[in-house]
């Protein structure tokens, strides 16, 4: 974070000048967006460019610099031609991200945050990129690579050192996607619909066929459009659903899609298969996933080399390819226990539709809840329904949504705002990302309904910058909704207006906290504010503002469409409905799941238990604010109240599983390091206290801890949680509280026996060579610091003074002669 600006060099300010001159309605609150664009222009933020921004926007330089140094996305130093980012999310950490970083540091000869002297490669450690299902992951020049190993990243880094500068492909604009045949197409000249100004009865006409005219030709025309949107069009031999969730995409290299195109072309079948690039289909562990219709099948780990067989046997031959199934005999998605035990309500479309095509959402009752709300319900009735349904905030806090809306609506100030919190910063969580990538219109519909309910004419979606695909999908969805008259002025001819603006976060976890998020949207440092007054009373620019999470909004259309009773039919009395979880870490079925709140046996039944050869130790919920609890307790009940009793919290739904190979002290240290780095720095307990806690944990994992440290940790944790200014600080000690409560013996063994039971804490490890050494010399050749010596055929020796405990010798020894203690 501590960055010193480079010496002033003359920057070509012309592009920046153009950017600002062409910015429509430039306001000080756009500062962060302006800096993001400036960084796109220059690769970093040169001081003279920042000076220019301050001048042109008439903002104090001190504010510009304060903002530029607050957000980790902003760089004040030039970057290399290539950028390697090592994901430091929880799942990646559990699966060895530190080893990847170590390897890259060794190969590149630079530390994280630095650039090689030749300006070729920059190495960075970044917050969770949401590819937890294929952890550990790295991002190279903007592309996610999953399930990587030290060896692989080392090779990649060496390649980049000589590789030419990458050419960044033009991002397709949202309009590219509104193409081909859509519901906007007019059946004949009688139709009043135009893009942006559809006929007032547009929705009814296209969805229910209540047209102003029913010429046979026109009815058939609309039917065709429907078939297309529902993947039933007879013009295709088959429909292939390619999972383009981040996780599958990260392991889809080279592309299955391209292989399909090639294969079809070869056979003269181009255009005969309808390809749907879906959002996350859920079972990330077995990606890339390809599902097929009308002969239904769920194929796992599909490689381009499998494509010819799929076309030949499945599409043309009507046969199921057994070897690509999840398990013998489990042909369809519904047959796989991972899915059959779930209740996929909010996720019902995710993975099943093209998220970049509004028609597919519309064809599945999309926007009907909005229609109902606007045409048949008063705002008060909408709030009543949401209250009666018992919907609670899915972002972690669990505050009743209806009550929040009620408070905002009751304010005398009629300039009100909606904020959709899509700043899913919890490492190990990717529910919101999956929803936005897989079914963005559902979220948008929820936002529209909420805006109607509280009387807001302006909504913001604050999405973290680490989710470029989610942002792009949302932009596309928004552009389409505008064309369909669902967003913008005079929605569905009701005279109601709603402007929706996407705000891209700039890399600050604390901005997930609602008051910090509001500061950020106002173009300021994301510092938390005192509550009360609450945002619903005094939020964005002082006006009543409802901040709800993505998943909360996605639930809203369901309540209006299916009714309160239906909604309450699952979950508990106090926690109704379903909750989405992202499962990652040391578990068999990593992925995205939706279950009724209070679901038991989540880890074993759906998660499939531990992978071969290990056993689940604990589960971490709620990210860095959450707790790590023993697995058996986790499986007793997952609802707001029960988790609270265990000292844990529901959190946003990230669930990271640990096993015997995870050191819980190190795990707590990881989380504390995270919150410590992400603290906004305003209040003393959080800023200074978490630092001291982290230092104590570092001492313990270095084998220098004292038994008194445990009391000190508990004491500091208590003071920090009781006195911090916002939720980030108040919950930061939770990982320490919970690991001290359930895994204290691990702390004790570090301190008293200087032993790390999981074999993770390097300072406490020693490697030595046993007498069954054959003297082959493999270990000595593999050792990166050449600290192993010996004669061929003799027993080799490790110099422990120089050993860096990387474990390479242990890995390469074919005889198991290198022991770790």
């Amino acid at each position, binding site marked *: *974070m*501590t*960055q*010193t*600006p480079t010496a002033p060099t003359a920057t070509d300010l012309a592009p920046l000048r153009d950017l600002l001159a062409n910015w429509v309605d430039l306001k000080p609150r756009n500062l962060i967006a302006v800096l993001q664009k400036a960084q796109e222009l220059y690769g970093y933020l040169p*001081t003279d460019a*920042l*000076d220019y921004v*301050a*001048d042109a926007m*008439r*903002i*104090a*330089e*001190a*504010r*510009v*610099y*304060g903002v530029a*140094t*607050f957000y980790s996305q902003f760089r004040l130093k030039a970057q290399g031609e290539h950028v390697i980012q090592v994901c430091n999310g929880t799942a990646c950490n559990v699966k060895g991200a530190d080893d990847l970083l170590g390897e890259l540091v060794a190969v590149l000869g630079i530390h994280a945050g630095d650039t090689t002297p030749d300006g070729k490669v920059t190495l960075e450690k970044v917050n969770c990129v949401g590819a937890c299902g294929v952890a550990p992951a790295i991002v190279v020049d903007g592309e996610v690579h999953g399930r990587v190993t030290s060896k692989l990243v080392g090779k990649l880094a060496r390649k980049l050192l000589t590789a030419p500068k990458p050419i960044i492909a033009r991002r397709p604009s949202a309009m590219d996607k509104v193409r081909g045949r859509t519901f906007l197409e007019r059946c004949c000249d009688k139709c009043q619909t135009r893009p942006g100004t559809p006929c007032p009865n547009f929705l009814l006409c296209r969805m229910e066929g209540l047209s102003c005219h029913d010429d046979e030709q026109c009815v058939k025309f609309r039917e065709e459009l429907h078939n297309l949107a529902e993947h039933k069009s007879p013009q295709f031999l088959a429909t292939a659903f390619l999972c383009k969730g981040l996780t599958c995409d990260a392991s889809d290299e080279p592309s299955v899609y391209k292989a399909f195109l090639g294969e079809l072309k070869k056979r003269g079948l181009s255009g005969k298969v309808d390809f749907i690039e879906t959002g996350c289909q859920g079972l990330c562990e077995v990606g890339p996933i390809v599902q097929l219709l009308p002969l239904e099948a769920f194929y796992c780990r599909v490689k381009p080399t499998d494509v010819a067989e799929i076309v030949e046997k499945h599409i043309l031959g009507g046969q199921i390819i057994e070897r690509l199934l999840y398990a013998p005999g489990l042909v369809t998605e519904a047959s796989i226990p991972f899915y059959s035990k779930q209740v996929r309500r909010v996720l019902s479309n995710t993975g099943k539709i093209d998220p970049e095509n509004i028609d597919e959402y519309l064809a599945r009752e999309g926007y009907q809840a909005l229609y109902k709300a606007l045409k048949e319900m008063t705002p008060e009735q909408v709030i009543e329904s949401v209250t009666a349904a018992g919907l609670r905030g899915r972002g972690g806090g669990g505050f009743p949504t209806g009550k929040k809306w009620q408070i905002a609506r009751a304010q005398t100030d009629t300039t009100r705002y909606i904020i959709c919190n899509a700043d899913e910063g919890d490492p190990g969580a990717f529910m919101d990302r999956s929803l936005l990538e897989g079914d963005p219109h559902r979220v948008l519909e929820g936002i529209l309904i909420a805006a109607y309910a509280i009387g807001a004419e302006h909504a913001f979606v604050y999405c973290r910058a680490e989710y470029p695909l989610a942002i792009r999908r949302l932009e596309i969805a928004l552009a389409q909704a505008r064309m369909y008259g669902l967003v913008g002025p005079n929605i569905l001819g009701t005279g109601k207006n709603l402007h929706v603006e996407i705000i891209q976060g700039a890399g*600050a976890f*604390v901005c997930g906290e609602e008051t910090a998020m509001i500061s950020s949207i106002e173009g300021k*440092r994301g*510092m938390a504010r*005192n509550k*009360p007054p609450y945002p619903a009373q005094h939020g964005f620019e002082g006006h009543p503002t409802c901040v709800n999470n993505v998943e909360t909004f996605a639930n809203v259309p369901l309540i209006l469409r299916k009714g309160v009773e239906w909604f309450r039919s699952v979950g508990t009395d106090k926690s109704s409905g379903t909750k989405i979880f992202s499962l990652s870490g040391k578990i068999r079925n990593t992925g995205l799941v939706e279950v009724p709140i209070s679901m038991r046996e989540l880890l074993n039944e759906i998660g499939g238990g531990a992978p071969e050869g290990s056993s689940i130790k604990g589960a971490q919920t709620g990210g860095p604010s959450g707790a790590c609890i023993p697995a058996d307790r986790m499986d007793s009940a997952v609802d707001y109240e029960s988790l609270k009793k265990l000292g844990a919290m529901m959190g946003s739904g990230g669930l990271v599983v640990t096993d015997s190979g995870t050191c819980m002290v190190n795990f707590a240290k990881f989380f504390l390091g995270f919150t*410590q*780095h*992400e*603290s*906004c*720095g*305003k*209040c*003393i*307990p959080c*800023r*200074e*206290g978490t*630092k*001291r806690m982290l*230092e104590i944990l570092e001492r313990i994992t270095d084998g220098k801890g004292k038994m008194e440290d445990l009391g*000190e940790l508990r*004491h*500091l944790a208590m*003071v920090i949680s*009781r*006195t*911090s*200014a916002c939720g980030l600080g108040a919950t930061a000690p939770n990982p320490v509280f919970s690991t001290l409560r359930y895994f204290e013996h691990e702390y004790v063994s570090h301190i008293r026996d200087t032993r790390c039971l999981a074999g993770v804490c390097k300072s406490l490890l020693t490697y030595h060579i046993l007498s069954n050494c054959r003297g082959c010399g493999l270990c000595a050749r593999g050792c990166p610091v050449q600290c192993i010596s010996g004669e061929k055929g003799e027993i080799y020796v490790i110099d422990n003074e120089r050993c860096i405990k990387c474990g390479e010798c242990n890995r390469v020894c074919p005889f198991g002669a290198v022991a770790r203690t």
Partner: protein
Amino acid sequence: MADNQVNLTINDLPVRVPAGSTLLEAAQTLSIRIPTLCYDKHLTVSGACRLCVVEVVNPTGSTRLEPACSFPAQEGMMVRTNTRELRDARRTIIELILANHPRACQTCIRNQRCNLQDACREYSIDKIRYEGEKRHRAVDSSSVAITRHPDFCILCGKCVKVCKEVQGVYALDFVNRGFSTTVLPPFDRDLADTVCVLCGQCLLKCPVAAIRDKSYLDKVSDALEDPEKIVIVQIAPSVRATVGELYNLPPGVPLTRKLPTALRRIGFDYVFDTDFGADMAVMEEGHELIGRIKKGGPFPLITSCSPGWVKFMEHFYPEFIPNMSSTKSPQQIVGALTKTFFAQRNGIDPKKIFNVSIMPCSAKKFEIQRPEHKLDDGTPEMDAVLTTREFGDLLRMHEIDVPSLPESNFDPILGDATGAGLMFGVAGGMMEASLRTVAAVLDPHCEARLEYAALRGTAGIKRGSVLIGDREFKLCAVSGLANARKVLDEIKSGKEEVHFMEVMACPGGCIGGGGQPLPTDDESRRRRIEAMYAEDRALPIRQSHKNPAIRTVYEEFLGEPNGEKAHHLLHATYSPRLPRGF
């Protein structure tokens, strides 16, 4: 909730306060003390230090801790302010601050005048349980008046807020985040290269020693020791009302006539009075105003004796340069006349004169360096400025106990002043002093009018009007630069018409200046202002044009007010300054 009051109990004592009061305010009505470090009632509440947390009892019987500085009192609340948990939490917070602090109390300039030290004493801190990494940043001594010592900073944010909210300058902000958070000028530049106007309000707000005076004591001591030098000192109007505070006297006990005795004992050769320069400024600026009234503009004429304001204007409102009075400040007038009029009259080589001023102001250190404040041969009019606080150090160094000294007079002519000159020390006073002369000169009916109630008191923006002849002139006196921004923006947009405007950079004027003793707060400002008004009333002459010394200087040396020589010596020009401020 009747008549918008709420009832609650604090430490089991019932209390009724207006709705919207904070718990801190509610506790104050019961004389219950709650410790604070980052709280300041004139700044937006940040709730950063958490020292003021109090225990609030939830309906379920459990408790939570809330910051008293910002948490609103609510009907039926039960609050405790001093439980064992709270004492322990506060102690931990103080220890956490100390773990990241140099802890160099004995050698610290703020020793025994430090809020952090007070907190340590209050909570009996006898050990620090936490040791580890400390933040480190280099000292910034680029500015001529203010040095920043980031290692001492406890990040309370008061400097950032006073600079932004009270002064509208925004030369500092928080930088980085988390443990790396620091308060820095933009782009980590030297403070000297920013829009900082050196008003010193940040220093007054700083609870510790993170912002300090750049001291000129050594330079002054050297001159005093140099037998070749004739060391002349002048003392600003407001300083006489605040020196007592350096000796733990209550604010508002003037020691005026004891100061010349003290200064002579230190070794100054002549003791002059900045009030004389103020009388001269009334004559010069008054005639500018008379000239503009006769010519019909440009209006408003804006005062220029506050150097923080002048620098602010050059950064932020250079479009008002034509409105500025060209008259130099009283300090510079006395300085210029010392090295010309006084030197000639006494046959002294001006090059031997070392001119020192004792000022309530840190920006005066910037003012003496401005290029327009040099004599024809390049000699600076003034050689050194000491703030009131540094003056205290000088007095201590010489073991002088001012309150017990006998009284004596300032040295003649440049030490002879009126009540009008004295009034320069309070916001609105300069304008009042000018009107005492201008109105009398233009309109015989105003001859005896000495006090203008609309311009008195502690308000940041004071508006009034004066009838001169048959014409009404609109007056506006502002103190605090954010207030100046408000009025200037109104004038710019045509919403407000002002003919004569006084701007003082510091809230309350010079009695609240950035160079004044600590603490400078509402109470001390109010009492200092009263002392100044009282001293003015007690003086035999209260109009500058009636000062015989002023007449002597014009007759013997300058000629006419605004005449050629006066213009050459006593007037200055201004120009836009970078970086441009917003």
